């Protein structure tokens, strides 16, 4: 079905969070943490806007809207609304509303709270742009924007080295994957000639027919696996827990990390259901699921436990998407919805515990049920959903996904076993997070624990209850959310009939009972299990996280060696290299094209012209015979002034004017440099070295002279000068053609040049500020300065 074109409100909905990001700091300055209330209206309104799509989309309709962005490249800012993007948009804006409120309570009194809100909104807008993105290039831009905003949010606590490292790691991993994605999109665009996702989806075999399926597949996976933290790229996600909890709950469980899964689901009609797809995805997904759950059991930090189960859940989603089997895909969509609700809630609960009790180490918590009853209730609801127990949405999701894996004609048994093992371990973690801090004897916590304020409680309570409500309205949930999203995955319209209670005693139910039983057994042995895994990990002793450090260190070391090779820090070497290559550049073409330019006829010079030439030559001789460097510099000025006079006589007053000023200033500045550097007053090079530099200097001079002669003997093309002479008065209202060229005709060049001047000024200033070693006379102290700078940088 071709998508219907809608008005621009949806485009505005994507841009609204960016506007909110601008006003957030000011609002926070006025209302303090209560700014969360008005700010939360923005995502709430976006949520309302997208609820309007639920009805039509569930009937199989799709919508597009577009605004031209860079039309000459086919880049548009366009959105594509179908079941999948509606589901994601609702999750992003709905959970976003709660997160904004939660952030209001969590960072209450923080000096940078306004900035935090700002970053959250920037992320929200980017994420909306990503999941609604129709144009591949704008989708990519929003994809990278989510990486960048995630970097800002993880590194929010920028005074701690750990958060800086985590932020950089996340940026490098997800940003690097984003580049792979860009390559994939460019391949798709150039192979198919289409740039809009909706058009591509209209003909599902378009990519498979191009013959570029394999590279596109690998590159898309490169983007999706890094973003969705699939093994072996999973390590950045637990490290990202350095971010404040609202970020972990929002980005690193409910939304951003699902972008990879979203991409796989979105591209499923185009790339899915091939041997490659159904082999690679379940394999990586399954490994990620197992690795994630096992590592989660190892942790004692509430947030880290949740983070690793997030990795595991993402693995499960990739595994299910990888089956390309309709029932399993349905399970994936359901699980995605359920996971966003319970995991977002549990993260916020972990944050609330941390906020109120002062620690989130599960071994140091206990007996909080009386102090924090509402939080405890919300935790139980969310954990039951995560454990896959009735009557929660998590239960339905697990039933459906077992049904899918069990019935998958591919490697159904293996996938089912992995899913059962993973789910059992997730139950263990859910129980540990929801029960351990609250039950048992009261443990003294760093802070006197009490119930959090309404801003902190609202989020978890609403999310947990939503998980319950959606389960009780299973039929509606299936019809309005799961069915439409599944239609996007399969590429044909589906209607789903869900029910909360299993209709018969079948395989999924038995698998569920096994899962729960296994989970409970493992939970009783949690401490033993934890130490066992810890000792195994200690025996291995290496992980991708360490590997990341090794890779980064390797790259830095490698570029360091290259830099030391190219940048010796010795001024003399630099100058020699520059002038040798200048000589080659000016001499070689003349030599290759054959023949010297003809000697021009000597014109009749007047006596004062001879005089000026004489002065110039005199200046040069003075440079050569000068005893001290200072004299040599001033003598060089003589030659410069003589040249300026020549310009003056031959009708280039502007040039001459500038030459005068440049000469004056360079003599002044060089003299100042000389007095600053601890140089020996005179030149002490050995005779061979002096002769060598002399040869190089003569070669450059000869080359330039010959080039100039050759150029002046060519016929002069007067088109440009005629144009400037003709139009500088009539178009640009200026009689000084040189100036008109600089500021008007070629103004853009000048803009670039003045930017260079500013930068050069900054660089020189930085170089001057470098502390040189006192009382040390060296032959070439520029070397010294550069070395000092390098050692300080180290």
């Amino acid at each position: 079905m071709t998508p219907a074109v809608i008005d621009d409100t949806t485009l505005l909905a994507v841009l609204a969070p960016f506007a909110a990001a601008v006003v957030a700091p000011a609002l926070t300055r006025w209302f303090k943490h209560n700014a969360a209330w008005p700010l939360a209206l923005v995502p709430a309104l976006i949520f309302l806007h997208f609820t309007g799509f639920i009805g039509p989309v569930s009937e199989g309709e799709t919508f597009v809207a577009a605004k031209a962005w860079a039309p000459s490249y086919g880049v548009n800012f366009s959105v594509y609304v179908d079941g999948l993007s509606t589901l994601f948009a609702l999750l992003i804006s709905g959970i976003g509303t709660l997160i904004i409120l939660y952030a209001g309570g969590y960072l209450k009194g923080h000096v940078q709270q306004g900035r935090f809100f700002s970053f959250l909104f920037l992320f929200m807008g980017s994420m909306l742009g990503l999941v609604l993105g129709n144009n591949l290039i704008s989708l990519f831009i929003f994809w990278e924007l989510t990486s960048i905003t995630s970097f800002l949010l993880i590194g929010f606590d920028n005074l701690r080295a750990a958060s800086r490292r985590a932020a950089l790691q996340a940026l490098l991993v997800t940003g690097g994957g984003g580049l792979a994605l860009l390559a994939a999109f460019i391949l798709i665009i150039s192979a198919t000639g289409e740039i809009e996702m909706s058009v591509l989806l209209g003909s599902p075999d378009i990519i498979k027919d191009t013959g570029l399926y394999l590279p596109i597949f690998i590159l898309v996976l490169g983007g999706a696996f890094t973003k969705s933290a699939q093994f072996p790229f999973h390590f950045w996600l637990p490290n990202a827990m350095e971010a404040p909890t609202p970020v972990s709950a929002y980005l690193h469980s409910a939304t951003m990390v699902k972008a990879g899964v979203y991409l796989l689901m979105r591209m499923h009609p185009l790339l899915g259901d091939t041997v490659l797809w159904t082999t690679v995805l379940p394999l990586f997904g399954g490994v990620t699921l197992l690795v994630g759950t096992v590592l989660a059991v190892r942790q004692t930090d509430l947030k880290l436990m949740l983070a690793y189960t997030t990795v595991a859940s993402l693995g499960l989603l990739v595994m299910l998407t990888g089956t390309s089997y309709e029932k399993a895909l349905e399970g994936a969509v359901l699980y995605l919805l359920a996971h966003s609700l319970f995991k977002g809630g549990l993260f916020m609960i972990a944050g609330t515990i941390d906020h109120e009790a002062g620690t989130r180490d599960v071994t140091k918590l206990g007996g909080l049920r009386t102090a924090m009853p509402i939080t405890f209730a919300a935790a139980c609801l969310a954990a039951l959903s995560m454990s896959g127990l009735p009557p929660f949405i998590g239960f339905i999701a697990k039933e459906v996904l077992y049904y899918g894996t069990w019935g998958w004609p591919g490697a159904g048994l293996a996938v089912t076993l992995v899913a059962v093992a993973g789910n059992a371990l997730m139950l263990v973690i859910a129980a540990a997070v929801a029960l351990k801090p609250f039950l048992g004897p009261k443990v003294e916590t760093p802070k006197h624990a009490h119930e959090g304020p309404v801003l902190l409680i609202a989020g978890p309570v609403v999310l947990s209850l939503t998980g319950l409500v959606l389960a009780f309205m299973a039929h509606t949930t299936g019809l309005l959310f799961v069915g439409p999203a599944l239609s996007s995955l399969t590429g044909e319209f589906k209607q789903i009939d869900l029910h909360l209670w299993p209709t018969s005693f079948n395989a999924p139910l038995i698998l569920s009972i096994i899962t729960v039983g296994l989970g409970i057994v493992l939970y009783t042995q949690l401490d033993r299990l934890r130490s066992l895994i810890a000792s195994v990990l200690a025996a291995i002793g290496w992980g991708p996280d360490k590997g990341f450090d090794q890779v980064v260190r390797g790259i830095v070391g490698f570029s360091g060696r290259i830099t030391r090779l190219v940048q010796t820090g010795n001024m003399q070497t630099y100058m020699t290299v520059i002038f040798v290559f200048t000589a080659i550049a000016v001499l070689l073409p003349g030599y290759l094209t054959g023949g010297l330019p003809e000697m021009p006829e000597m014109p009749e010079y007047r006596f004062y012209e001879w005089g000026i030439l004489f002065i110039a030559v005199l200046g040069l001789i003075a440079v050569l015979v000068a005893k001290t460097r200072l004299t040599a510099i001033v003598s060089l000025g003589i030659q410069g002034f003589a040249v300026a006079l020549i310009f003056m006589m031959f009708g280039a007053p502007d040039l001459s004017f500038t030459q005068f000023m440049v000469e004056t200033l360079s003599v002044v500045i060089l003299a100042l440099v000389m007095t600053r550097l601890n140089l020996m007053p005179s030149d002490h090079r050995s005779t061979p070295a002096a002769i060598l530099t002399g040869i190089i200097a003569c070669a450059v001079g000869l080359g330039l002279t010959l080039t100039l002669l050759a150029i002046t003997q060519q016929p002069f093309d007067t088109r440009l000068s005629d144009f400037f002479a003709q139009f500088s008065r009539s178009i640009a209202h200026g009689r000084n053609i040189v100036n008109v060229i600089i500021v008007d005709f070629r103004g853009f060049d000048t803009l670039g040049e003045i930017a260079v001047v500013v930068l050069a000024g900054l660089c020189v200033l930085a170089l001057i500020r470098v502390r040189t070693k006192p009382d040390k006379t060296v032959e070439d102290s520029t070397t010294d300065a550069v070395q000092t700078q390098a050692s300080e940088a180290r």
Partner: protein
Amino acid sequence: MRTIIFRTIAPFLTALMVLFSVFVLLRGHNEPGGGFIGGLIAASALAIFGIACGVASVRRAIYFHPMSVSAFGLFLGALAGVLSFFKGQAFMTSQWLIFDFFGVEIALSTPMVFDIGVYLVVVGAIGSIALALEEREID
């Protein structure tokens, strides 16, 4: 360098040179001159003042850090180019405002604003280098 004659004359010389540099800058569109040359003149004026009376007094006199002046010049230059957007024209299309001021024809234009930007960039960059070099006892 700090002879009494030089120190007495330097402030006047500097003032004259700065005035002259502005003159050169403004007449640039029709006569020899322009932002670049004007900026160089003003920068050397600052350098002379610094040599004669010390860098501290120059910094006091110009109030802003010369690098900020330079950066502002770049900003001004870019801004002059953006104005044409409001008329739906390409970046840096020149805009002219010519009006009669008590019988004298005054021409205000974006190229002039741009040239002032160039002037400030050059004064700032060269001036800050010269001043930093003259400041021997930094740290």
